[in-house]
């Protein structure tokens, strides 16, 4: 009996010792030197691994930060200035402040403004539909409404409005990582500076169609009439290819262009209500972000998959 116990103890401990030696040898042999600052930088990052910076995840970004001589080209859109400051502090480098951005949906073609002429019947994926044809409505530039951007969003900052069949961006949750911008095959979503007190004015249309067909396809389309261009005293509005674009840097938020737009294609967000409302009622209804019924939204989305 004793012999068995002793034999067992000897065997097991010798196995343990041999294993320990092998492990020690392996850890020495295959040791990879890693800059300890990479870990420190990584700790400072949000760890969302969203890829908004252009790197596959937070660690590769941290490696790039450590390697780079200059942090100017590197930016974590999710963490924003604070994070980049923290990273700069760890590395002893300098970083300039960048304007905070937010994703903006530039199509207002809700079902009541844009009539459907055909019925799409296939895989529920925007890119696939985009590759097939211009979309169910007569507007070939507008939102297809299948929610690829919502799927791409890693921060739950978007949901599909079942009524308008358009995606809605929840401003407070948007980190401007740019995943939705990349996902949208129609290039409808744009990253714009948040602006003073989150006030923004932008053209909510991407149609390059001429005025006639544009107006026919969608009642809230930008028809490139140029009224806003004439109205703007700050040279902030450009009209290119029958489409107005408001330069967010030059824009001083005077709101004059909003009033003159005949199709209400220009949106103002987070402004105090006007005394005389120039816009149609539905528009304000669409701009405000609704109390989200998360379960309902999830159901709608899951049904679509």
């Amino acid at each position, binding site marked *: 009996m004793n012999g068995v116990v002793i034999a067992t103890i000897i065997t097991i401990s010798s196995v343990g010792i041999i294993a320990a030696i092998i492990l020690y040898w392996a850890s020495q042999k295959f040791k990879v030197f890693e800059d300890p600052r990479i870990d420190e930088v990584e700790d400072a990052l949000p760890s969302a691994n969203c890829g908004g910076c252009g790197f596959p995840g937070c660690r590769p970004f941290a490696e790039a930060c450590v390697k780079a001589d200059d942090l100017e080209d590197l930016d974590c859109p999710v963490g924003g200035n604070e994070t980049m400051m923290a990273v700069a502090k760890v590395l002893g480098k300098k970083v300039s402040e960048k304007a905070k951005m937010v994703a903006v949906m530039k199509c207002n073609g809700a079902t009541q403004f844009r009539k*459907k*002429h*055909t*019925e*799409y*019947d*296939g*895989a529920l994926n925007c890119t*696939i539909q985009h590759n*097939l*044809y211009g979309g*169910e409505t007569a507007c070939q530039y507008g939102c297809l409404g299948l929610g690829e951007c919502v799927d791409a969003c890693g921060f739950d900052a978007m949901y599909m409005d079942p009524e308008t069949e358009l995606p809605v961006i929840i401003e407070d949750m948007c980190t401007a990582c740019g995943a939705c911008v990349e996902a949208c095959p129609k290039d409808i979503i744009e990253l714009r500076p948040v602006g003073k007190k989150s006030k923004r004015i932008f053209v909510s249309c991407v149609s390059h169609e001429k005025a006639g067909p544009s107006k026919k396809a969608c009642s809230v389309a930008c028809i490139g009439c140029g009224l806003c261009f004439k109205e703007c005293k700050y040279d902030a509005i450009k009209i290119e290819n029958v489409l107005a674009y408001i330069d967010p840097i030059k824009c001083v938020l005077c709101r004059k262009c909003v009033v003159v737009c005949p199709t209400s294609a220009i949106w103002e967000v987070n402004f105090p209500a006007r005394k005389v409302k120039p816009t149609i009622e539905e528009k304000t209804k669409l701009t405000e972000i609704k109390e989200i019924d998360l379960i309902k939204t999830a159901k709608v989305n899951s049904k679509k998959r």
Partner: protein
Amino acid sequence: MLKLIVSLSPHQLGKNSVEKLMYGVIIALIPILIASVWFYGWGAIVVSLTAVISAIVFEFLISKYILKIGNTIGDGSAALTGLLLAFNLPSNLPIWLIIIGVFVAIVIGKMSFGGLGNNPFNPALVGRVFLLISWPVQMTSWPIPSPASEKFLGYTDVVTGPTLLGQMSEAMRNGESMKVFSDRIPNYFEILTGSVGGSIGEIAGFALIAGFVYMLARKVITWHIPISILSTVFIFSRILWLVNPEKFIIPFFHLFSGGMLFSAIFMATDYVTSPMSKKGQIVFGVGIGILTIVIRIWGAFPEGVSFAILLMNATVPIINMYMKPKRFGETIKEK
């Protein structure tokens, strides 16, 4: 106004459907059910019906109220799983045991992975093996078949006895010569026409082969898995027999005894848990064949085909990874 439908090609769809494939297998099982009712009497019907009904009920409850993916019993896969499980059970098994087996098969083996198409293991075999390990006595007291021409058996009035494989492993343990043993067993015509004990689906090799031919003709399955299993079993056991005919039994015994035919034709060919490419299916079949013989001869259980299939099920993802179909223009590319 006319609203045109727009979608990507193809605009024409074939007549295949999940239902058609599932009911195709169920139809192929009918001759076996008839044969087993002939030999086992009411028991075969009671066990099959209990299994099918409880499988449908479990599937309905889970798909509707827990997974919330809508009612999925219509596709016939639950009924098929129930029926396949029943065919792997002895005809005198108590009803409560059948229901537990079906519960394990449907709820744990299939629905817990997300329902049809997601389970890595054959659900009917999961249920069977669970029962076999948990209630070995009930699961291995096989009724002795008696043709209805002599006496139509009731559910409980069966006499139990060991199966051929049970007799073989008993004989092997006693060191009996296999040459002597093979003289004791019934001849192959008797084995094929069903006069051997076993679970419901193991009876009547002719009925099994009829089902196989039907499924091949309807293109429900291809020949690759069953034929590769059976030929591997034959070749492997023949090699063993050539090495030592005293110790190992003749190859035909392995082919026709126990659940070999039934499992090769119906259990291993389950779509979800078998490899995709033809090459992969043959590798899968060869693996099952070898494992079955190994378990039968050297393992603790007399019957190993269920274990062999489950083990090979686990290798399916890796088989799919490496056994690719031959691409068009591939050979020339590599030159």
